[in-house]
């Protein structure tokens, strides 16, 4: 193989070229443009961007609205452990091979293939003041909840949509991880007297740890970038009740003058937060994995 490629050194580059071109055109160039715009004042009807240096970053960091949205974004991360826990539990149930598990798997996966906007609209109908959920609460003698208008419900409602939508996807990832765990290991642990929880904690969880990490990182990034659920479900609530990406949208398309420069700066700040968050997350995971493998090595 190496010998054949050695005759045509350009071949691997040519194979990679189309994908690279797509990346450069659709990811690299827009990213570079956003970085550039973040240092300019530019509205949709400006003739050309005007260089303003770090003014947009200063304006964003000095704004109470930015920090309120950032705090909401951080709070939105609470959805991640719940999502991971629920989808792992569902994957364990589906994996048991109970009768009807296949149907259950399909049903749990359905929200994943439902467009986010459709899902969020359906949830809006459920959660509105005179919606199904409040009618049920009233029937039970509980006062209706302002799901779509008052804090903290304006954050909890989109979280419910995120849970509903992401649940099936992460369940399938966990299921793939669980299927790869040899049954013999679990059986051996059970024969040695391990209960279900012990077997899960000491055999299954370490085996699927890379999957847990993947789900945590991916779902955290999704939570930090959440937009559809908030835009559709609680559109109209003050921007201070929303998260960073809706703030970017509001700044670019709705707020005074449609300030693309400031919106770009906020976007870059979010990018830096996500980058830092992911790096810390992965560093912690690597340390834990190293410690676990070190402990394993000492034991054997």
């Amino acid at each position, binding site marked *: 193989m190496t010998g054949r490629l050695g005759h045509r050194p350009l071949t691997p580059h040519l194979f990679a070229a189309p994908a690279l071109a797509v990346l450069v055109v659709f990811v690299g160039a827009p990213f570079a443009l956003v970085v550039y715009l973040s240092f300019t004042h530019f509205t*949709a*009807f400006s003739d050309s961007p005007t260089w303003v240096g770090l003014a947009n970053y200063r304006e964003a960091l000095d704004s109470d609205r930015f920090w309120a949205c950032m705090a909401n974004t951080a709070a939105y991360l609470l959805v991640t452990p719940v999502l991971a826990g629920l989808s792992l539990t569902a994957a364990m149930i589906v994996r048991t091979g109970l009768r009807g598990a296949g149907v259950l798997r399909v049903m749990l996966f359905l929200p994943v293939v439902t467009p986010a906007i459709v899902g969020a609209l359906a949830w809006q109908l459920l959660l509105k003041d005179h919606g199904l959920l409040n009618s049920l609460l009233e029937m039970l003698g509980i006062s209706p909840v302002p799901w779509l*208008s008052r*804090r903290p419900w304006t954050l909890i409602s989109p979280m419910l949509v995120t849970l509903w939508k992401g649940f099936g996807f992460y369940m399938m990832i966990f299921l793939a991880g669980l299927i790869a765990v040899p049954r013999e290991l679990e059986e051996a642990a059970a024969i040695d007297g391990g209960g279900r929880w012990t077997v899960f904690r000491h055999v299954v969880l370490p085996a699927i740890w890379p999957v847990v990490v993947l789900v945590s990182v991916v779902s955290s990034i999704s939570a930090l970038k959440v937009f559809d659920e908030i835009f559709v479900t609680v559109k*109209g609530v*003050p921007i201070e009740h929303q998260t960073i990406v809706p703030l970017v949208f509001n700044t670019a398309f709705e707020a005074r*003058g449609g300030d693309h420069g400031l919106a770009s700066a906020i976007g870059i700040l979010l990018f830096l937060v996500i980058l830092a968050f992911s790096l810390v997350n992965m560093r912690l995971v690597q340390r834990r994995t190293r410690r676990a493998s070190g402990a394993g090595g000492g034991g054997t």
Partner: protein
Amino acid sequence: MRLADRPFLVPVLVLSMLCVLGAGGGCRRDSSTIAIERIQFWTLALAPFDSYIRERIGVFEREHPGAEVVWVDVPFEAIDRKLTAAAAAHRAPDVVNLSDRTFGRFAGLGAMADLRPLLKFRPEDEYLDGALAIGRFGDRLLALPWYLTTQVGMVNTKLLAAGDIPPDQLSTRWVGLREQAAAYRTRTGKYLFSLPLGEESQLPIIMWGEGLRPLKAGSDGRLISSLLDPPVAAYLRGWVEFYRSGAMPSEAATRDHSHLNEMYQNGELAEIDSGPNFLKRVQDVAPGVYALTLARAAVTGSTGKSHIATMVVAVTRQSRHPKLAAEFAAFITSAESQTEFCRLAPILPSTPVSLASGVFARPPLGKDGVPTDKVAWARAVAAESLKDAVAFTPAMEAWPDLRRAFEERIKVLLLDGGDFGVALREIDETWNRILRESPPATEECLPRVSMTEHPL
């Protein structure tokens, strides 16, 4: 992989390239005789009138050889974003139909061309003065008025009866309606009416109808905020307290006008004020509610004047054919085009000629005293109210920014609580800052509403 190993690839590639070249060639026209001038025309949610728009475009193209009009219909809620995105890419349409609110925002951004040097006639001779005022910014005319909507009141008689309010006893003034709504809520647990107070807040609009002015001339003649003037502050406080009392649905703070329509057709509101075309929608989607509906004059402030919502047609500054674009804008808003449009849609025209065309006579009453055609009746009621209608929209670039600043702060006040006085002072400061940073505006820009003694 060598091409020689895959002989079928060569003809496939050649054919593909020919197809691509052929497709490009298909777009080419013979420009040796007539130069094609292509303009793009965006309308706002007019897809149901597809055949009318296409017929008008056909007539215009026949009258203007070489002109080609590409029509794009845009959903109402998407126009802001689509126009902003198109303009950022320097691909704004040549001619665009906007609501007065959206138009004000884009005009303030300098997006629209001055039509005066582009038109071959005096617009004052063609359009109703109140409607034309929307597009006037000083000496410039940035838009032509198209169709108008003056609101009409719609009452669900069954829901009203549940609160022991006879239809003729239902107040037609906002302050009176608020009092009745509080009692109605206590008696029935339901809502008498709603009004957007936060998102797309109507408060800065309806206060003109009360004879109150949120703006006044400062010492140098430039407009400054008058939100802290006691009558204005008291009026706004009245609405905030009314909302907080729970007599209005919570959507009044977070949703625009669409929540009224949804709630009314679901039988959740006893009274709404909307365009007469909304009654047609009720007839289609909620025939039960339609059967119980009675049309009447819209609720107003103490002056009795109602607001004209105006759809305008503007030419963008990015247009490559501004003259042709202006001609098309004049053509689509002409008396002839508007009269024809009014026969098809429950709308009102902005030209006196169309208004006098006899399309707007009240239909006869049936044996039971109920109009034979409720939609036509509602439209006639709305047309009659035009004589008392004024566009409560100051013709100034800063107005959309002032409204947005008001909405953002009032929403927080309504939903999160807080001190009314503090919030109003903050809005007042923001308004004065925006006014200082904007092109100078004087009292000339303000709606002319006859002032009356305010009851508060």
